[in-house]
């Protein structure tokens, strides 16, 4: 049987370079630095602002309030089922900016590269960042590259910052929830966290779990069009849905009542969670959001989400209530009720 053709590299070939891995000199500002930027980075991130190679990007933004966010990505391993550190870094910041309702315009990218990182790996990451930025419809307009000695970082760390402009009159806030509002989750839980965990050293077992990393700015556009009264949007990344919902309840001084049967978890993800003794409510997602909307707009928002590729499995998971302010409660499948608490620390696989 022949190997599967590598389409990524057919469209995105690694340019011929003098070295096959990152050298300290690649970060020293001399010829090798210029080589890395000109041959490897610029061809992937071409934008009018970046191509000028000034010390800063000068942006012509439409009028309005600017949403601005930054995030640093240190995921290990850097390649995981369903994605890599590159598309994660683009999608993560696009989503953080977009959760304000802003149209995301531009990203900055800062790389910290470890001496010895294979150039082929770096190139693969750049290609996936290019594809992610294209899919999200954002430009990478400025950047920076530093090289650190072997052992000073774990292959590659990426910082991305993003700016967007918020439409007039839109004021999304976690502190604006009122009793009666509906809570909508855009899809299945725990895909990203379990995809990464199942390939981590010491835990590796065969599974088909894939990260859900995805840009959500287009989905958000649809949500806000269908639900102009939307109270707040947030992506339940680290700490999972349970953390985000607790943050909402505390910020607004309301209770949230969830329905356990409304949550969806893919069977393979549920299996991995069961084996490791981990609750999917606390596991990171990278392509999901939680929207809180007034009750009379919930059905319209739900329909709009389900019509979008990143919201096909959206469901109403709960209601904002006046009872138990600051606490999130869940009706179990048997009709009993329990608390969904903030996690204390990282979830750890149990002994038995």
């Amino acid at each position, binding site marked *: 049987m022949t190997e599967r053709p590598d389409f990524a590299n057919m469209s995105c070939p690694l340019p011929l370079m003098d070295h096959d891995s990152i050298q300290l000199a690649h970060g020293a500002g001399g010829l090798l630095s210029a080589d890395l930027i000109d041959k490897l980075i610029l061809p992937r991130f071409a934008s009018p602002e970046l191509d000028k190679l000034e010390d800063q990007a000068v942006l012509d933004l439409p009028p309005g309030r600017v949403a601005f966010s930054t995030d640093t990505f240190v995921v290990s391993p850097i390649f995981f089922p369903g994605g890599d550190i590159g598309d994660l870094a683009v999608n993560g910041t696009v989503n953080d900016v977009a959760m304000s309702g802003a149209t995301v315009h531009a990203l900055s990218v800062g790389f910290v590269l470890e001496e010895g990182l294979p150039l082929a790996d770096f190139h693969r990451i750049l290609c996936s960042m290019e594809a992610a930025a294209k899919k999200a419809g954002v430009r990478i307009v400025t950047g920076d590259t530093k090289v650190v000695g072997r052992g000073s970082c774990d292959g590659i760390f990426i910082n991305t910052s993003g700016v967007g402009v918020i439409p007039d009159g839109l004021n999304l806030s976690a502190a604006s929830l009122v009793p009666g509002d509906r809570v909508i989750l855009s899809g299945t839980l725990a895909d990203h966290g379990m995809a990464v965990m199942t390939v981590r050293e010491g835990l590796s077992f065969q599974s088909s779990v894939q990260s859900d990393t995805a840009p959500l700015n287009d989905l958000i556009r649809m949500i806000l069009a269908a639900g102009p009264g939307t109270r707040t949007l947030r992506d339940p990344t680290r700490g999972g849905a349970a953390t985000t919902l607790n943050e909402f309840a505390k910020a607004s001084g309301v209770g949230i009542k969830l329905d356990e049967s409304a949550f969806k978890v893919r069977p393979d993800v549920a299996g991995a969670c069961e084996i490791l003794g981990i609750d999917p409510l606390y596991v990171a997602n990278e392509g999901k959001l939680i929207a809180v909307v007034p009750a009379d707009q919930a059905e319209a928002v739900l329909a709009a989400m389900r019509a979008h590729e990143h919201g096909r499995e959206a469901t109403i998971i709960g209601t904002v209530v006046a009872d138990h302010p600051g606490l999130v409660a869940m009706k*179990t*499948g*048997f009709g009993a009720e329990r608390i969904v*608490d903030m996690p*204390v*620390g990282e979830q750890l696989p*149990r*002994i038995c």
Partner: protein
Amino acid sequence: MKYLDEFRDPELAKGLLEEIRRTVTQPWTIMEICGGQTHAIMRFGIDQLLPPEITLVHGPGCPVCVTPLETIDRALAVAARENVIFTSFGDMLRVPGSRDDLFRVKSRGGDVRMVYSPLEAVKLARENPGKEVVFLAVGFETTAPGNAMAVKQAAAEGLTNFSEIVSHVLVPPAMEAILSSPDNLVQGFLAAGHVCTIMGWDEYEPIAARYKVPIVPTGFEPVDILEGILKTVRLLEKGTPGVENQYLRLVREEGNPVARAVVNEIYEVCDRKWRGIGMIPRSGLRIRDELAAFDAEKKFRVEGIVTEEPEVCIAGEILQGLKKPHECPAFGKECTPRTPLGATMVSSEGACAAYHKYSRKGLS
């Protein structure tokens, strides 16, 4: 998911609850042994659905909870050594010793790694011949075969750089300690299904006969637990104590003879301290003398570290089913999962931690 959804089926659960209601005629106190069962009871709210005649009390079956402070302190001393790769299951990493936990040792430069199987620790020993690899072997009979297998494998390969800190505990002596206490309230047991997967149930027959209690090996899903309660209540109401297996899909009377043989080959029964309870005779496992080269406590000479439990919390009474977590004045106040005062708040499977996580709503 197959083998899971059917045991979380609300309709089946409703039928079992109805049958329990029909069967019960008087108050009964039943103890679930295992922390995994406690966790499921709180997570699915089973305690809220049972008829008021039935009181569930939570047993000592959380290995993280009952591992004595002394063992943790010894583990921390070994983990802090130069040239040691210290390995452990995930949830032991956070357990505080007298002053430290493994995470903090790691942050100061200790090589502490989470493994999912003790055989991964053996692999690390094979790959790092210049390092000492130590595995923290805690747990009940369930994890003992895997941990014993790691020693057996290391011995077979002639590895001299692998050793274990062993703090295994056994369920039947703890049950006897509870039943023979003058304050005992427990009238029936849901035995820990996974322990019985290894050990079978023949060792429970004499306990059931001597103390006239029903003992029902029970699984961990809501339908399992409700069926286990129903079987226990039936035996109690009929006045016919004995052992009856609920966990049919996994538990055989003889358990798993191959696993039991490996445990007996590597470990032997010893007296063991339980955190929150104290010394229980013949309630633990330790590495046999002829395999002392694999005993990390001997190898690193940490047997001299002795730690007394602080007398601040009622974990001992909770682990024996005498009190419930919310009856402790410190519960949810000075004592939380972030600031645990005692054993049962330490692990996510401890009874206090389960109460704190799932049913704090009534607290103000």
